[in-house]
Every structure is written in structure tokens, then in C-alpha cells.
């Protein structure tokens, strides 16, 4: 969003129509905001009504410039409206619940908003996506799947088609394997996802398309289709390389580092990530991400001393909850190297750090997970 969308000149006309707040969720100064509005995935876009203390719009995910312009237009209209339609009222209540982390309750109201939607309602696609996201957060995979199957024909050909199809497919894969309908649900949603993927009339952002690859790969993995999954992973890596090569700035190129590394690790070719990450390290010397990713790549290459040196550089730069990811990756490097004592000490360091984070950034679930990992480590 920051590298590709929020710098677009066509957004200038909105500059004086909103107060613009950029919230780095890793920054300690963001903790009080996060306590009020837990952020489940990044990016999350919100439009808030400060006078009424209400959530006017909420969207979890990235957006293209035209999608963002539409969101801003719709949100401004809702903010200025003297009265709201029943669908908009239900959506506002659902957004408030979802923003407070109450996803099961939010999902019911998102569903009611869709049921009350007038013909041609602007919010239909985004509400469908929000419904599926809340159902997935509430771990209701079956309802998420069946609603995606219902909703896809309604949003087909729109910018919400990718989100609905891929979210539905991800949910279908999470459905209990004993469910006799699971295979058919996956097959249908995989077909829908492929349909979006192949629809070149849709303008998809790079992360939307990359997300579609990931969902399709998950489906092939679930089907234990090794050849199909490998072929898709190769295509995914090639797509990301092409996108990075077409980038106009270093920031735009580095946007693809994360998924390119994931693709190379999945393909068993971590060495391919080294040149791009070294380039990013040169381009962004204060950023912890390039060395943190180099540590993962070198670990996969079994070059543990290089991995630890990269981890040192990342730890010198990282801050906020992300430091936990760097520390647990460092513990993994020590484990792979056979230094169990150092691995345990690093995991304990991660637990202590997790407990020291301010409310809003501290997560009891995360602390419990780290403690479980430490308990499972060999003495």
C-alpha cells in the first residue's frame, strides 16, 4: 500500500477531506490504539468517526488505487449521511464489533447487512469479504466455506471476487476432513479461485495475485498433488520476480522480498533469495527485514554462522512485537546447529521480551505459545 498506492497522485484530492493517520503496529506509541482496535492482519484500513466514537469503514487487506478511491468516497458519504439505510446501520455495528475483536458477533451482523442490502448496494463486496474474514477469525471454517460458495456468484467479476474465492478456499481446506462435503467444496472454490486468477479484465494488486497463488498452492498441497503444487510454486516465483523487476523504486522492489523468500524456501532453493536480500540490505540499511530474511535463507542453506551473523544485524535494528519473530528464528538456527542450550536461552529471552511489551502489543496467546515451544525443547 505504502509503496504502490498511498503515493498515487490521484489521491491528492482527498488530502483535505480526511485526517490521515499512519499507524505502525510495531511502534510502542501505537499500543493504546491497538488496545482499543485490535488489528488482526496487515494492512488494515479504517475510517473512524471521532465525534461519535464509531467505525465508519473497516477493511482488512490491501487495495488498488481505484479500490481505495471507492472506499474513501463510500466512507465519506456514510460519515456525512444524516441517516443510514438498514444495511449501512447493520454494517456499522458489525464493523464496530469486528474492530473490537468480537468476530463471531460481527459475522452475524455482516450476514444481516447482506440480507438487508438494497439492489446495487455499494458495500456488498466489501461486506462479503468482511463476513468471511470474521468467520475465519472465529474459526468457523464450515460457515465461512458455505457462505463463500453462496457469495462468489454475487461478486464474480468485481474487485471482491479474489477475496471471496480465495478466503473461501482457505476456509474449505480447514474444514474437518471427516466432512463428506469437504472435497466438493474445495473443488468448487478452487475452480472459482482459478476463474478469478484467469480473468484478466480484473485489475488485481500484486498482493491479491500472489495471495491467489498461495491459495491455489494450498489446495494442491491438500490434494497431495506434488507435481501440481511444484509447478504452481515455480509460476508464483516467476510472477514475483517479474513484478519485482518491473518495480520503479527500491521500495516497490522490496515489497516482493517476503513472498519471494517464501516461494524460494518452498521450492528448496533458498540461495536464490540471497542476492535480492543483500540488495535490500544495501538499499535500506536501517531496516531489520533484509537481515532477518537473510537469517532464514542461510538457515535453510545450513550455513548457520552466516545465519547467526544476519540475525545479529536484525536484532540490532528490530523493535516491537516483531522482535519475537527474529528471536524464535534465532532459536531455530541454534537448534539446527545442535546448540540446544543457546536455543533454550534464546527462547527464554523471547518469552521475557513478550511479557515486557505494553498492553495492546502484548499477547497472552503468544506468550503461551512461546512457553509451549520452550517446554518442548530438549534439555
Amino acid at each position, binding site marked *: 500500500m505504502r509503496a504502490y498506492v498511498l503515493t498515487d497522485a490521484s*489521491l491528492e484530492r482527498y*488530502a483535505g477531506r480526511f*485526517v490521515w493517520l499512519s499507524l505502525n503496529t510495531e511502534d510502542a506509541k501505537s499500543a493504546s490504539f491497538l488496545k482499543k482496535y485490535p488489528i488482526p492482519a496487515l*494492512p488494515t*484500513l479504517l475510517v473512524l468517526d471521532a465525534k461519535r466514537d464509531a467505525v465508519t469503514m473497516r477493511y482488512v487487506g490491501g487495495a488498488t488505487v481505484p479500490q481505495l478511491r471507492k472506499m*474513501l468516497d463510500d466512507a465519506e458519504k456514510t460519515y456525512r449521511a444524516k441517516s443510514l439505510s438498514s444495511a449501512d446501520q447493520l454494517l456499522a455495528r458489525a464493523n464496530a464489533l469486528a474492530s473490537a475483536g468480537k468476530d463471531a458477533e460481527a459475522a452475524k451482523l455482516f450476514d444481516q447487512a447482506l440480507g438487508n442490502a438494497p439492489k446495487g448496494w455499494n458495500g456488498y463486496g466489501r461486506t462479503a469479504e468482511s463476513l468471511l474474514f470474521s468467520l475465519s477469525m472465529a474459526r468457523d471454517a464450515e460457515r465461512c466455506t458455505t457462505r463463500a460458495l453462496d457469495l462468489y456468484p454475487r461478486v464474480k467479476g468485481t474487485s471482491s471476487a479474489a477475496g471471496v474465492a480465495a478466503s473461501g478456499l482457505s476456509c474449505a481446506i480447514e474444514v474437518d476432513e471427516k466432512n463428506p462435503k469437504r472435497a466438493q467444496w474445495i473443488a468448487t472454490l478452487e475452480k472459482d479461485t482459478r476463474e478469478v486468477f484467469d480473468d484478466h479484465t480484473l485489475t488485481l494488486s500484486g498482493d491479491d495475485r500472489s495471495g491467489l497463488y498461495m491459495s491455489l498452492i494450498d489446495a494442491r498441497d491438500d490434494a497431495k498433488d506434488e507435481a501440481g503444487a511444484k509447478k504452481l510454486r515455480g509460476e508464483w516465483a516467476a510472477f514475483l520476480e517479474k513484478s519485482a523487476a518491473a518495480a520503479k523504486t527500491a521500495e516497490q522492489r522490496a515489497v516482493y522480498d517476503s513472498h519471494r523468500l517464501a516461494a524460494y524456501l518452498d521450492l528448496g532453493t533458498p540461495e536464490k533469495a540471497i542476492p535480492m536480500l543483500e540488495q535490500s540490505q544495501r538499499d535500506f540499511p536501517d531496516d531489520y527485514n533484509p537481515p532477518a530474511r537473510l537469517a532464514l535463507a542461510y538457515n535453510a542453506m545450513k550455513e548457520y554462522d552466516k545465519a547467526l551473523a544476519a540475525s545479529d544485524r536484525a536484532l540490532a535494528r528490530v523493535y516491537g512485537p516483531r522482535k519475537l519473530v527474529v528471536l524464535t528464528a534465532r532459536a531455530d538456527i541454534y537448534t539446527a546447529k545442535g546448540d540446544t542450550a543457546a536455543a533454550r536461552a534464546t527462547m527464554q529471552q523471547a518469552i521475557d521480551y513478550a511479557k515486557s511489551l505494553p498492553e495492546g502489543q502484548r499477547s497472552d496467546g503468544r506468550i503461551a505459545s512461546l512457553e509451549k515451544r520452550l517446554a518442548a525443547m530438549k534439555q
Partner: protein
Amino acid sequence: MLMAAAVLLASVAAHAKEVLPFIENDYATAVSRAKTKNLPIFVEAWAPW
């Protein structure tokens, strides 16, 4: 994409200041300004990863 598990493409520390006048990590200032000017607040929650 909406799935939390499918971590979205990383944001990098590029800045959008040239086009949109972002307030950095200061919710209280944003609320105060929004109330004074009667404007909605647009929030981009992101992280440098």
C-alpha cells in the same frame, strides 16, 4: 486477500507524505484534529515487514 494466515505482501518504510499529510502513530492528535475540523479519520495500520 483477507486471510490472516496469508500474510500480505510486506510494507516497507516508504512514505506517502508527498501526497497525503499523514500523522505518524499519534491517535490522540488525529482525534483532536478530526473533531476540530469535523473530518473522518483514515487509518492505515501497517508494519515494516
